């Protein structure tokens, strides 16, 4: 398809190499396995494959055709046209990792700006060039705390209100370790916003306490007491964030967090059925040497010109090999660029506007829906950002099925992750949702409930 060789080219090359046919190049491959017959479809031209992919895409319902209130870690925000147009410049997306700084200043400066923007948003000192997503960033936070405390503390407390997928991935990453204990997210410790039961578990063996802001249920909680308790016990605190919320809410850096991480998908990255997304990761200066992943730093070139380079590379796998604390190599370069362009395009006023719109519309939706007979808002005494929990008189799976007749995706069924929240729905509202959409949702709920 994309090989340019003419038969004449091949002949010239075979002569230079000194062999008779191309197959001779593979003489070292064991004969019985050489050139297998692959059970794959016949090849297609570009025109044909475009048609095939169109029909596959058309077999889906998307947020284009469905009114969606699904959040739970991935959000449908408006992405300005300029983001993708810039991202599609071949100089950005067909470039390699910037190991040769002389010919990678575009990528390097963009990452430097990304690192800076993440620090400003989160209130932290240093940010890396990205991890894969929020969930793997959570695992990297655990690994960082473990190594920072030299393996001497082995207990990691994670709030039950942290995204269930983050907690799963942390457990996957740490399953091989004999001594690491992950606890705090059991039903007994529970979901109380005071965090008292979690704080009670902090002791001299605690390496890290992890919470989320806003939490999985959209709640905005003051973590300062928890952070104080953790610090006085000598433990670190990692806070998972939704970056959109930081347009209007105090950043965790100002509360005293040691690590701030999260899912950067809301920043100009399409839903794309779950990926590729963006793992944001930032720390205080004290933890700078322990941060994994790439870092871009400012320097000068041999003519004294300002230049950007990958730096502190001695932390990474290609140098430290088995001594590296993380194995990360390829990260999410293009997605970090997308978020940098998004934040720059929106700027201070635009980003604050989006954040505020999400807040306002979610509050309107919460008040409308909780006023329906039989419905109530759970955690209603706690401030929330753009997601909230509604208890329904109907079983949630039936409710969601019924809403489909209205082309509505009603939200996330919390009972599948939280037995104590059986019958509860997690609803997210972004700036793309209009008042009419919310009223439609309200009216549909009334109709399907009182049938």
């Amino acid at each position: 398809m994309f090989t340019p060789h003419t038969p004449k080219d091949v002949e010239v090359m075979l002569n230079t190499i000194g062999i008779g046919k191309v197959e001779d190049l593979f003489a070292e491959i064991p004969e019985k396995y050489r050139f297998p017959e692959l059970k794959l479809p016949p090849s297609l031209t570009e025109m044909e494959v475009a048609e095939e992919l169109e029909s596959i895409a058309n077999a889906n319902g998307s947020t284009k055709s469905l009114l969606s209130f699904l959040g739970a870690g991935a959000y449908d925000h408006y992405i300005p046209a300029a983001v993708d147009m810039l991202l599609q410049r071949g100089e950005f997306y067909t470039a390699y990792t910037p190991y040769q700084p002389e010919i990678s200043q575009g990528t390097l400066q963009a990452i430097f700006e990304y690192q800076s923007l993440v620090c400003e948003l989160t209130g932290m000192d240093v940010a890396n060039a990205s991890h894969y997503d929020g969930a793997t960033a959570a695992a990297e936070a655990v690994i960082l705390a473990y190594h920072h405390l030299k393996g001497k503390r082995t207990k990691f407390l994670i709030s039950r209100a942290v995204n269930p997928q983050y907690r799963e991935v942390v457990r996957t990453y740490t399953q091989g370790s004999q001594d690491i204990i992950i606890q705090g997210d059991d039903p007994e410790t529970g979901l109380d916003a005071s965090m008292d039961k979690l704080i009670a578990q902090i002791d001299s063996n605690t390496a890290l306490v992890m919470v989320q802001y806003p939490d999985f249920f959209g709640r905005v909680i003051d973590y300062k007491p928890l952070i104080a308790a953790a610090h006085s016990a000598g433990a670190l605190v990692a806070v998972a964030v939704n970056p959109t919320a930081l347009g209007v809410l105090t950043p965790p850096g100002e509360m005293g967090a040691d690590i701030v991480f999260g899912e950067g998908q809301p920043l100009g990255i399409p839903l794309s059925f779950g990926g590729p997304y963006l793992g944001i990761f930032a720390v205080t200066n004290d933890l700078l040497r322990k941060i994994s992943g790439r870092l871009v730093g400012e320097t000068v070139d041999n003519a004294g010109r300002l230049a950007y380079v990958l730096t502190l590379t001695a932390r990474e796998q290609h140098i430290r090999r088995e001594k590296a604390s993380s194995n990360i190599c390829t990260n999410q370069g293009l997605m970090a660029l997308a978020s940098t362009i998004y934040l720059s395009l929106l700027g201070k006023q635009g980003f604050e506007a989006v954040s505020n719109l999400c807040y306002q519309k979610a509050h309107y939706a919460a008040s409308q829906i909780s006023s329906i007979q039989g419905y109530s808002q759970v955690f209603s005494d706690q401030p929330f950002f753009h997601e909230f929990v509604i208890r329904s008189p109907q079983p949630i799976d039936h409710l969601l099925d019924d809403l489909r007749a209205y082309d509505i995706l009603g939200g996330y069924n919390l009972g599948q992750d939280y037995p104590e929240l059986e019958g509860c729905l997690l609803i997210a509202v972004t700036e793309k949702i209009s008042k009419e959409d919310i009223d439609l949702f309200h009216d549909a709920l009334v109709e399907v409930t009182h049938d």
Partner: protein
Amino acid sequence: MNFPEELKYSQTDEWVRVENGIATIGISDYAQDALGDIVYFEFSVEAGEQVKAGDQLGQVDSAKASSEVNLPVSGVVTEVNESVSDDAEILNQDPYGKAWLVKIQLADPAEVEKLLSASAYQAYRVG
């Protein structure tokens, strides 16, 4: 390259000076040269800790490389030279003097005998 006669050396490029049962340990001139510009040093041990030969003393990073520094002898750490972690560059400038790393109360002075003499170390590293 400098290989002071009065010191003993390990095959992993640490030097040892013994005075009254206390061993002072650092990295050799060969090591700092091989690493290049040193940017960071972190200690893995602290004063009061019991250690044995082969344990990690610290981690030294240069712009392009990272290396473990090991303890060539066993005993109890009496002092750690924090000025190296404050300014790792002194390892390049004065590896045998200002950039000493730790002092150890020796558990077994005979361990020092097993280390290389200056000429043996020089032969090993430079030939």
